[in-house]
């Protein structure tokens, strides 16, 4: 393997700085002691983090996002795990079409999904409800839950199951005591990736959320539309911290390159 030349390293440094700069600047401005947008040149202050406490709508939106992400990712797995087992193990007519259908939310622009769900749930009398948000998020996180579960189910050693069957295990016992523990790392990583996708979604959710069911990205977006002040940077810094934590856990647990490479493979249509 040949080394990178000095020119390549200069390019690389520039590239990394540009990639990190916007995220870094948000986190830095969040610590400003001033009352306006500025980099914290006169020392760091937590005043804008304390200020979040005076805006209950941000805190409420945070809990909505957290509950929505956790619940919709869990519900998506309830549907995705059996579907993944079927797709991984059986060769049946319509298998490819089903897999394509289940991954299709990756291909449909979220703005189109938002409009479709808004129309659908308003006609069904569920407009702006938390239930509607859950169902919509189950659909958009489903491909991520399915992909990682599918990878685990495909790579699993089937002889252990055969051994369990020969020892008399069947049906539900086989699934609960043998299959599920074996695919669990994939299932948990699928949940984590699905959670991040749900937690970050703005484009679709902005159509569905009503006052009371606004998620954190929606609340932040509506706030930014009116004005940008240090408060929204401190909220963003908290969001970045939550995502980074999930990211590091995901990396330790499963390997980030595996998670993301799989993801790109599918968006790659």
């Amino acid at each position, binding site marked *: *393997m040949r080394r*990178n*030349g000095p020119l*390549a390293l200069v*390019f690389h440094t520039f*590239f990394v700085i540009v*990639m990190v700069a*916007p*995220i*870094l*600047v*948000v986190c830095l*401005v969040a610590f400003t002691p001033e009352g306006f*947008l500025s980099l914290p040149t006169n020392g760091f202050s937590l005043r804008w983090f304390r200020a979040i406490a005076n805006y209950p709508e941000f805190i409420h939106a945070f809990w909505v996002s957290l509950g929505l992400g956790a619940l919709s990712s869990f519900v998506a797995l*309830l*549907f995705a795990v*059996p*579907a993944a087992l*079927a*797709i991984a*193990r*059986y060769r*049946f007519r319509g298998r490819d079409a*089903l897999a394509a*259908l289940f991954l299709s*939310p990756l291909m*449909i*622009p*979220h*703005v*189109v999904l938002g*409009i*479709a*769900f808004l*129309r*659908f749930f308003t006609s069904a009398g569920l407009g702006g409800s938390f239930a509607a948000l859950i*169902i919509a998020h189950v*659909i958009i996180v489903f491909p991520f839950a399915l992909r990682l579960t599918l990878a685990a189910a495909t790579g699993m050693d*089937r002889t252990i199951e055969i051994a369990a069957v020969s020892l008399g295990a069947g*049906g539900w016992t*086989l*699934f609960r005591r043998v299959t599920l523990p074996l695919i669990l790392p994939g299932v948990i990583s699928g949940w984590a990736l699905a959670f991040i996708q749900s937690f*970050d979604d703005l*484009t679709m959710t902005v*159509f569905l959320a009503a006052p009371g069911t606004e998620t954190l*990205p929606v609340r932040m*977006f509506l706030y930014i539309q009116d004005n*940008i002040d240090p408060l929204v*940077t401190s909220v963003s810094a908290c*969001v*970045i911290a939550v*995502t*980074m934590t*999930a*990211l590091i856990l995901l990396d330790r647990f499963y390997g*980030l*390159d595996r998670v*993301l490479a799989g993801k*790109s493979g599918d968006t790659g*249509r």
Partner: protein
Amino acid sequence: MSAVAEEGSARAPWALTAPALMLFVGVLLIPLAMTVMLSFHDWGQYKGIEPVFILKNWHEIATDPYYAEMFWRTFRIAILTTLLTALLGAPEAYILNRMDGRWKSFFLLVILGPLLISVVARTLGWALLFGGNNGLVNKLLMSLGVMRSPIPFMFTETGMVVALAHVMMPFMVLSVWAALQRLDPQIENAAMSLGAGPGTTIRRIIMPQIMPGVLSGAIIVFSLSASAFATPAIIGGRRLKVAATLAYDEFLNTLNWPLGAAVATLLLVALVLIVVGSNALIERRYAEVFR
């Protein structure tokens, strides 16, 4: 869940996928069909939505130059974003691939990590960096002598392209990086030993092999940029509309849902045609790579 018995149970896979299938038909396919139908309904300021079959919205989009300009702007921004990510992302993936193991995984995390960080937070970062004529980006560019007078980034297409390229960059790096993994490093050494310089090696040996990766990355970046919402809405402001922000306006401000549905349907159809078409082209051109 008779998972072990593969043959003999033709019903098992259908029983396992039935719940997900019903979910997708019920709350994905039906709502999408309803949206297409909605685009043919009538709407009036006082009468609201009238469920009749009428081509009014489609006629308006086809004849009013405002929509042609808006769709052209949407696709222009998407094309420029795609070019920018390809020009910067492909070399970076190549450099990344030649690094030592630990540095490689560290920088991969730094570059791919933003993919999972909230788009609102990332775009807010650009809004802070651009911030009027005294923004950090302008100060930096002027102190480096790249230009004399500040150029506006906020509420311009330039700003949208820069911010979108940042948001989409991880997809391009990932795609090229995946193509590089399939490349045999010995080929590069063989080219060197046969007397090819570094420039020739990159142009004649590396480029042709990573091209499928660049192109499939380009398709992802293009389709995501053309339907992007958060970045154009925050950087573009209320005046500079793209397809997604216009549909949002029709739905939540003007309340002309049928017209918004027509814009969304057109965006969906255009993107599906472009993506499927270019995928077919790439697969035909690079058939040997995909075999």
